[in-house]
């Protein structure tokens, strides 16, 4: 009876195996994740270790160009930092913030959705009203506002310390309503099902009922939402960093790298901004492809 077993349906695994796009996207994603989280081990250089930087190697183009240098595969920036390594570390930051934001959003949204759906009445009305209003404001505006306020309220020396939590909080705050909506809908449907009422009669407590029965039914749609949301979160963080209000410069994300590189666009050193850009697109694209596949695979109607 528990929905957990139903979730691990072999149809999903079959569908993945037979979709070349999904398999490719997963492989690319795995490579990117391993490359970024293993950056400290795998990266050819350490762009943060000032001692290893050589200003003479600054602004070198990628290896296939006439001035290229094989030690710096994708070229260097104005400080002599290896672009490939910077990208790997940068992607680590981008991924971490993206994942953290999504987790927090899912947690918040699912919890609030369960509450709203199960308790109904005024709790439901309040939560949903807030969700509705928030949904009509674009994520980036909310994130900018929170970030700006935090920046103003917190004294300068603490800025770096709180930058990450604030960023994660800001992005996740913009995302919870969509989960809450979905979960609330499913909860309300399940709440009235007979087996829930039967369980109550037997004396099983409400949280247990919700967890065992409502949650598995909701997992599919939430997973699809989360994957798409991950892509959005990564883009939002990149945008904020590009605008200069995201991660601090000491731990640059892909967005920061793009911003730094933007200054060199007109002087012809295009690689400093383009390669981080391509890395970002690759990451987001594979996440989106996976999300698209998942949406089709988990859609009960198409079966």
């Amino acid at each position: 009876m528990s929905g957990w077993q139903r979730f691990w349906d072999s149809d999903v695994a079959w569908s993945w195996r037979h979709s070349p796009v999904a398999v490719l996207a997963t492989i690319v994603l795995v490579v990117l994740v391993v490359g970024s989280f293993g950056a400290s081990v795998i990266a050819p250089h350490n762009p943060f270790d000032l001692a290893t930087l050589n200003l003479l190697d600054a602004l070198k183009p990628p290896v296939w160009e006439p001035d290229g240098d094989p030690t710096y595969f994708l070229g260097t920036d104005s400080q002599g930092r290896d672009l490939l390594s910077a990208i790997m570390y940068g992607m680590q930051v981008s991924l971490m913030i993206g994942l953290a934001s999504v987790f927090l959003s899912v947690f918040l949204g699912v919890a609030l959705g369960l509450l709203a759906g199960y308790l109904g009445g005024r709790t439901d009305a309040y939560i949903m009203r807030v969700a509705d209003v928030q949904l009509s404001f674009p994520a980036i505006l909310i994130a900018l506002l929170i970030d700006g306020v935090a920046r103003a309220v917190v004294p300068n020396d603490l800025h770096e310390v709180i930058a990450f939590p604030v960023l994660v909080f800001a992005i996740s705050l913009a995302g919870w309503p969509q989960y809450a909506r979905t979960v609330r809908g499913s909860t309300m449907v399940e709440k009235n099902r007979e087996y829930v009422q039967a369980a109550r009669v037997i004396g099983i407590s409400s949280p247990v009922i919700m967890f065992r029965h409502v949650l598995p039914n909701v997992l599919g749609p939430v997973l699809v939402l989360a994957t798409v949301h991950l892509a959005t979160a990564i883009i939002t963080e990149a945008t904020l960093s590009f605008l200069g209000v995201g991660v601090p410069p000491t731990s640059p994300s892909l967005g920061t790298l793009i911003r730094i590189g933007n200054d060199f666009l007109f002087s012809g050193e295009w690689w400093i901004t383009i390669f981080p850009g391509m890395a970002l697109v690759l990451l987001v694209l594979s996440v989106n492809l996976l999300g698209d596949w998942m949406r089709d695979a988990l859609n009960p109607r198409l079966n």
Partner: protein
Amino acid sequence: MFAFIIRRLIQATGVMLVVGLIAFMLFQYVGDPVSIMLGQDITDEDRIRLTNQLGLDQPAVVQFYHFLVNASQGDFGISLRQGQKVSTMLLERLPATLELSFTAAVIALVIGIPLGVFTALNRKGFSANFVLAFSLVGVSLPTFLIGILLILVFSVQLGWLPSYGRGDVVRLGWWSTGFLTASGWKHLILPAITLSLFQLTLVLRLVRSEMLEVLRTDYIKFARARGLTRRVVHFGHALKNTLVPVMTITGLQLGGIIAFAIVTETVFQWPGMGLLFIQAVQFVDIPVMAAYLCLIALIFVVINLIVDLLYFLVDPRLRAGIGKAGGH
């Protein structure tokens, strides 16, 4: 029908009040209100006098009331960074943002909707799937990156289009328009395309998925069973039913364009409100931030209202539902 409008208006006012409250709290608790109002270099006497004058020693509710009164007249004080009146600064930059957003919205709709219909009706076609793949890439490209790429290709490499500013503008009263000059248009193209791309792909995918849903309905099946031509079924029935929900969602999305303009204006140094807002956030210029927030909220609320009204006009179920009872 009236009840509906009144209800929506009350809701709208409620939202504006909440936003106003947030803006008010920004003024009060983030930074020092007095220096916000008058700048940093004032004497103690001036401070005391102003505190009395502004009523800062009065209860918060009264202050909030004053704030609302001022805000509804567009008075948000003086910018910390520029020293000018916030309202003047915003008004000066409003046309730039609105023209950019409007153009981007038009592009997104004029290209997005037909493409969405096309991909829904030709599920197996090669070109349809190509468009779909392109739309997926479009969703994966952040707006600022699109801007950078366009600049790289069209400004740096090809040198065809400018990448900076708005070009020559013509003043009509307090409005400044770039639509009337060739230079204005040249400057508008790249930013408008950049801003529209994300929305375009969203519209495309939305129209496609809605239309596919509609094509599965019983009334479409029945229309086919009655022998109606393909064109009538697809465009007379399916399209009309698709556009009704699409309209609502699109309306809301278009509000997002104005917000996304922040990024585009930054990349292209377009002198609009978004650029102003970013500079304000970086500098912690509270009055500008608060004013922008309220203005954006107002625009959103108005757009929502218009969309709701449109929905009302288009869907007969909403119109007649409150009036006549179902016949027997």
